[in-house]
């Protein structure tokens, strides 16, 4: 369970609010978060594993305060970024997954075996020794996912994981994410993917604009955005 308790974020220099005090309890297995660019979606989900600290209020994951017990929370929460290139550190696919496993598996051979198994599970077994620079965008995202899943997180936060992917990879990565046995918090601009969640939260201008059924949330979001466009065109 993830719990936001009046968590707010302000810009460190200017003090401008980025996210208004927000209280949410996230218990569903798949939650999608949608909203306009710059609305505060990424800020909200980055608070889940302490990448962005709340200026006021708190965030708890499984009863652990993220601000106080960040490392323990991060072991439970996997994070998938929009651009996988920034998430991949080692030169080859297997070495990158092995890096994730350094914390838990001491022996190199066992680590390599576990890493290969993780890659095979995700469908990249045959690309294990390939340079990460030689992988396609979709394969890189899968590799980033393999690196996250190798350490068996309970919660997976995916910040626009399919934005940079073509339609084929978008469908593949999307269905793979939905089938994982973890709680999935997905920030997305893909409304087709958003409606497949169990709950959808619309974030707009730094606050929760809608929270509820995905179909209603997407309809609300469309009205909000198209209404804004029409108003701009009218002026």
């Amino acid at each position, binding site marked *: 369970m993830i719990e936001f308790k009046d968590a707010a974020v302000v810009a460190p220099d200017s003090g401008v609010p980025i996210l208004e005090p927000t209280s949410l309890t996230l218990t569903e297995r798949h939650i999608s978060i949608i909203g306009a660019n710059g609305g505060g979606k990424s800020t909200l989900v980055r608070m889940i594993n302490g990448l962005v600290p709340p200026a006021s209020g708190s965030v708890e994951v499984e009863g652990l305060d993220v601000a106080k017990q960040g490392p323990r929370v991060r072991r439970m929460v996997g994070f998938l970024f929009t651009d996988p290139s920034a998430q991949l550190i080692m030169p080859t696919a297997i070495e990158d997954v092995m890096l994730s496993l350094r914390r838990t598996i001491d022996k190199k051979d066992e680590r390599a075996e576990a890493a290969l198994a993780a890659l095979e599970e995700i469908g990249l077994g045959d690309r294990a020794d390939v340079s990460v620079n030689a992988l396609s965008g979709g394969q890189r995202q899968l590799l980033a996912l393999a690196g996250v899943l190798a350490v068996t997180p309970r919660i997976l936060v995916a910040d626009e994981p399919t934005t940079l992917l073509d339609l084929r990879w978008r469908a593949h990565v999307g269905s793979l994410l939905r089938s994982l046995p973890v709680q999935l918090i997905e920030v997305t601009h893909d409304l087709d993917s958003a409606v497949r969640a169990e709950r959808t939260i619309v974030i707009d201008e730094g606050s929760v604009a*809608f929270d509820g059924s995905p179909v209603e949330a997407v309809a609300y979001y469309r009205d909000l955005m198209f209404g804004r466009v029409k108003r701009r065109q009218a002026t």
Partner: protein
Amino acid sequence: MISMLGLYRPRHTPLHHAPAWLKVLMLVAMAIVTVVASDPVTSVGLMCASVLLLISTEPPAKATAWAMLGTVLIAALSASLHLWRGDWARAIDVAADLIGIVALALAVTCSTSMAAMLDFVSTLARPIRFILPPETLGLMFALMLRALPEVARLYLESRMAARARGLERSVRAVVFPTTTRSVGFALQLGQALHARGIAEEARGSRKADKAEARGESRAARKATKRRRGKGAPAVADHELTKAEAFAVLGGGPSSAAAAGSSAGPSAARAGATATASPTAPELEDRPATRDDSPTQR
């Protein structure tokens, strides 16, 4: 340089099986010998040995050929300078030394995985572990290598963008975006490292992880005690039970719909609290493990 970073291929050659420390030691020894010995026969002999070693690692042909071609060109230039001065022995010596060292360095690169090299760097850094943790040093090394192709990519993209805007002669139009995007990449990489929990853990914490992973409850308890002493809570205090795990993961669509109906657009503006109570769990009766991950190809 950048193409060299992906040269390693897993093979079953003698050099692949040799430990990283031995290969690095060999490289250092070779460098010292080439500096000390100025005999062309020795240099040519060492060069031949190095090239043979490189061939024995079955390196990727194209990238290796390009690297060697560049080296041979530089060696030829250096040699021609000495020949112009009439010192043919020195010319052969310098050219052979250069080609030999690069060939051996390539042989080491082709036969040593980054993980093995990181382990070696970590071992090497053990004496200064109180100042700089060996793992951090190894990670720094990996990040440096990782950043090189990325910065090169950013540079090429910036150059193309400048060209597209008709600013191909403007240094600023290339340097500024390359610099700012490199900083952006570094920040993203830092966040990713943070999110993956790499290099942020104290040694005691790491030991506890391993103990927990192996199911060695005694060791885990000891490590937990140590952490407790430092103010962190016990592991067991927050470990979810099976039932709790299902409660966490099992919220069904019905609960979401119920929550949705209660928190409509009108209610939500003020940052409304939306708490969905978990209903019928949809997961099967066991905790989530990696074995549960689907195999999709």
